[in-house]
């Protein structure tokens, strides 16, 4: 069998052997970059991370949030769909009854262990009420303890700003059973 072989000429011409033309060509490139970055228009693509953040796509699956109805109450009806579908088994819901008949059922407790979450987005797909979303655009989540990654219901809710027509204030929402206080979110802003 005959192979098609392309022979590359590797003999050193005078140009190669002298090195200097080669170095000059290299210097032309490095100096162009050098002077453009020092005095002229900067080509630097670095993002100064903690101060600047990379813009993320709208479809980017970031930290979860629980959406609210127009009147400000949680949309979630505690149907357990997301908990069932979650491949990482990191959602924990406890359903409860609410005195307001328009609410029916609501999550007394809604915890997501963000350390176990694989950010697959299946919970968002599964939810019949569009109650859970991953559109907060929060990229970095860094805390000092494992417990901090167990996001509670109020924390998940409060990454979302309620609109003006809010009927329920936060005080109207029954406290979660374990009285866990909301943790600061990943940008270090404490939840209201």
């Amino acid at each position, binding site marked *: 069998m005959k192979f098609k072989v392309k022979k590359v000429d590797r003999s050193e011409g005078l140009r190669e*052997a002298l*090195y*200097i033309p080669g*170095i000059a060509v290299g*210097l032309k490139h*490095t100096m162009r*970059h*050098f002077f453009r*970055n020092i005095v002229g228009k900067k080509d630097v693509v670095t993002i100064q991370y903690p101060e600047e953040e990379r813009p993320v796509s709208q479809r980017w699956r970031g930290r979860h949030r629980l959406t609210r109805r127009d009147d400000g109450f949680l949309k979630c009806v505690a149907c357990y769909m997301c908990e069932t579908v979650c491949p990482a088994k990191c959602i924990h819901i406890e359903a409860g009854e609410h005195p307001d008949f328009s609410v029916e059922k609501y999550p007394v407790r809604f915890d997501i262990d963000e350390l176990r979450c694989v950010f697959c987005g299946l919970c968002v797909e599964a939810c019949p009420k569009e109650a859970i979303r991953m559109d907060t655009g929060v990229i970095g989540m860094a805390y000092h303890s494992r417990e901090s990654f167990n996001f509670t219901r109020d924390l998940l809710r409060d990454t979302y700003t309620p609109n003006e027509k809010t009927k329920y204030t936060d005080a109207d929402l029954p406290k979660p059973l374990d009285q866990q206080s909301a943790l600061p979110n990943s940008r270090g802003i404490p939840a209201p």
Partner: protein
Amino acid sequence: MQLVLEFLALPFVQDVLKILFILLLFAMPLGTFMTLMERKWSAAVQDRIGPNRANIGSYRGRGLLHIAADALKSIFKEDLIPKGADKFLYTIAPFFSFMSAVAVFAIIPIAGPIGDFKFQVTDVQPGLLFIFAITSLGVYGAVLAGASSNSKFALFGGTRASAQMISYEVFLGLSLMGLFMVYGSTQVSAIVEGQGEHWFGLIPKWGVFTQPLGFVVFFTALIAETKRAPFDAPEGESEIVAGYFVEYSGMRWSSFMLAEYIAIVGVAALITTLFFGGYQVPWLYHWESAPQWLVTLLQFGKFASFTFIFCWFQIQIRWTVPKFRFDQTMALGWKKLLPVALLNTVVTAIIIVALA
């Protein structure tokens, strides 16, 4: 007052003052500055930003504080001596590197003489031969560090460094033969004086114009002496980690690094002195009524700015040219630089004889 003036007039005191001035106010600050500038400039070449995070409060000084941060860090780092290392040799190795880098400044004039007073620590008779002697001492730094560390990588680095530096010493000397012939002396002050003349009152008689080939060979050999890219096989980051100083830590390691950067400044100062007229400001002789202090200041400014430019140029070369394999380093030296240096010597000799 009288006593102070007399004390200052003592040759010994003047020498000490000159050493302090040249080292503490010129070579060391520039060398330390280069440690940061190497990172900043390489960042600019590669479209990055470079170090800019060290801060005092909210003041960052565009990364300048990294110099202080580096110094503090290396002072407080643990100073390890590996098991089985030869303690004595291990301790003195950095001194050899540092000393040979610093000693170059002893014979470099930073400004023109005023009367009997020379802005030069010592104008020894052998002149540049002193430089060759000192740079060969620098080999000991690398070799001792490599041999005493009780580490294979360090040993490899040390042997590579010794082979490379000893062979490039040959071309270092040979490339300057033409220069000695043109200016008729090995003494630095005489060479710089000679470069103050002009052809047709227009082109300064700099070494780079009289000895272009010698300049290229000398520059190449000097870069090889400082063991920087493209001749950094002794440090060979990709195969032997850091070569001869791989086991060093803390302040000892810093003195190796600082020695390298002071050597860069030394190389730049040597190139300026020998091939770019040293402190000679071209066309200044037209202005005869210039006050002495202004002339001296201009001369120092010219010398310092050329030195700075060549520091920059070496760093630019480092971030442009890929590393030579070790056999390529040797082939380049013995098969290309040696004939070129010899040719340069012969041609220069013929021209000088023909013109005379």
